[in-house]
């Protein structure tokens, strides 16, 4: 750094004039007294502005697709979109009509997988955060959680087919598909529950232990109540993930078409196959010829809107929680 970014103040009035824009009293010696941007500093600042612009563009490149995708899909889907589309059943060999059986099927799959995954996931997170010591065994568990999150969805599908459909003899059913989804989404719940539990200050637990409570009493009366909103966030994220998955349910319980009554909410039994929203989008896009133009788009919009809505709820919950945090 040979260039000096600003000049050494010389006169006695420098304190007042140092940052001034050529104060009238010191105008004769102003050039020496003010901050002066040397060529070095100018180059540095120019480069800084340029870098900021590039990084801004890269960040913007993330937002643009989201907005463009949602906008375009909605525009194309507009002719079919409406409550009627959700409530109606597919007609004319799935080329027209609505998506009710798929919508209900997704509700069933998500509900059942949530009922299985939520307790196991929350308790596993409690174990990892409250009980586990730092030894090799618990490092193996954490590694397993990370790997469970990284297993490709199609491998989960193969597992579900081999384990639930054939080995456990559940057949192609909602039960098999939900269990596959539950195992697949377990890491989502474990990760966010652990985060919520870790956010409860250690002093809360210590205070509770010091009045003689056991570990479980502390967890039940102090740790869980103070982290319940964070746990809920994780559960909501699991719902969003389970609703969007296609590959794991494709070979374990979801079918192309199943006839149920329009608007019937209790149409499926657990040992039956069902339609699912994500699978339906794949079907009408790639398997069914001559579909009315806007039907796949409308299906995509309903799926996307459901998932994003659920996620937005989780985000809202988290922000609300952060604002009313007392510690």
């Amino acid at each position: 750094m040979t260039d000096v970014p600003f000049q050494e103040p010389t006169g006695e009035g420098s304190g007042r004039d140092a940052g001034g824009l050529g104060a009238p009293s010191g105008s004769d010696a102003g050039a020496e007294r003010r901050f002066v941007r040397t060529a070095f500093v100018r180059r540095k600042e120019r480069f800084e502005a340029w870098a900021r612009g590039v990084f801004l563009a890269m960040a913007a490149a993330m937002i643009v697709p989201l907005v463009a995708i949602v906008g375009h899909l909605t525009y194309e889907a507009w002719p079919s979109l409406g409550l009627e589309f959700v409530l109606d059943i597919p007609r004319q060999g799935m080329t027209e009509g609505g998506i009710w059986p798929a919508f209900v099927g997704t509700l069933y799959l998500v509900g059942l997988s949530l009922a299985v995954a939520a307790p196991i996931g929350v308790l596993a997170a409690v174990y990892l955060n409250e009980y586990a010591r730092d030894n090799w065994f618990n490092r193996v568990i954490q590694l397993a959680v990370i790997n469970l999150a990284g297993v490709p969805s199609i491998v989960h599908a193969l597992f579900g087919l081999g384990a639930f459909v054939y080995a456990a003899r559940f057949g192609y059913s909602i039960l098999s598909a939900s269990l596959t989804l539950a195992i697949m989404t377990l890491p989502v719940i474990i990760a966010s529950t652990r985060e919520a539990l870790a956010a409860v200050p250690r002093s809360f637990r210590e205070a509770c232990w010091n009045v003689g409570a056991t570990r479980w009493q502390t967890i039940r009366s102090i740790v869980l109540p103070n982290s319940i909103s964070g746990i809920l966030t994780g559960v909501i994220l699991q719902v969003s993930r389970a609703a969007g998955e296609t590959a794991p349910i494709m070979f374990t319980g979801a079918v192309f078409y199943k006839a149920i009554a329009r608007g019937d909410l209790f149409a499926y039994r657990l040992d039956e196959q069902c339609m699912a929203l994500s699978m339906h989008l794949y079907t009408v896009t790639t398997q069914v010829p001559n579909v009315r133009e806007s039907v796949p788009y409308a299906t995509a919009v309903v799926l996307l809107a459901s998932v994003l809505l659920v996620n937005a709820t989780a985000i809202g919950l988290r922000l609300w929680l952060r604002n009313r945090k007392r510690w």
Partner: protein
Amino acid sequence: MTGREGQSEHPNHRAAGGEGVASGREAAGGGAGWKPAPQDSPRGQGEGKRPRRSGWARAGERVIEGVIRTSGVSAVLFVLAIFFFVFREAAPVLFGGEHFKLLPFLFSVEWYPTSASNVRYGTLALTVGTFSVTALAMVLAVPFGLGAAVFVSEFCGPRLKETLKVVIELLAAIPSVVWGFIGLTVMSRLIVHFTGAPVGVNLLNGGIILALMSVPIIVSIGEDALKAVPDSYREAGLALGATRWQLVYRVLLPAARNGLLAAVLLGVGRAVGETMAVLMATGHAVNLPLGVFDSVRTLTANVAAELGEAPAGSDHYRVLFLTGVLLFSLTFVVNLVADLVIRGWRRK
């Protein structure tokens, strides 16, 4: 209560042993308050005089702790179960399939599973398909992902930061089948329109879609890595007169190197394992790609496309499960390496 105060210091110690310990409420309500009455419970004695919890309460607690421990172990069991059940279906063909040999399976490009005369199961073209799509996706996603992570972490104000993080989260939530649909309809039309390629569903399409899917992971993990760099590094840099860019380039990127590498690896893991999006967007031709406008098929898409047609128990069906074993091992290694890298970064 007495004699146990010291133990609460130990983070992983059972602060109050299970046996014969008064519950919090009983102890608090017992009139003794915080100060132990010396005549009642001198240190190390007087265990018998404490109010005991009923046997049921203690048994219930045992049961609950057992359930918690079992749930904790369940993740390991599930990973083992996944490997076991997928491998179990694949094993017969591996140890005595009629038309199956391991070397051609790994290194032959001829995938003709339903040929009447000469059945061949070579997955090299599929493996190359997977890696070429992943590589293209990473070429696009890594600069943008890391750039966006730097912007979110270092260049923008708190409000914009919150907004961007919400956008990243929403982007990560878009289901893969919707991405595939976008690739098949919107992106393929754009590619045909702008490049004049004969078909829009190809390597380029799959790469762009996978890049869009991997960016959120790279951004959020990369941002975590940058956040983990101590503020004193930034302050030291700024005190020397460095601009933000100089700070990022000379200080933060080297300091967060491991975390950023892990971010990229997790992005790779996501891209390798992705199924529905590549199934719909890459054009589905078993083919060694020579350029970005060639159609390809990946390992994952191949399983998704053919599992429905392969009769259960046939060689074809078992070979698809073997592909699953291959994929499982592949992502296992990638995730393991990413985890080791992250661990190294945390330790520092």
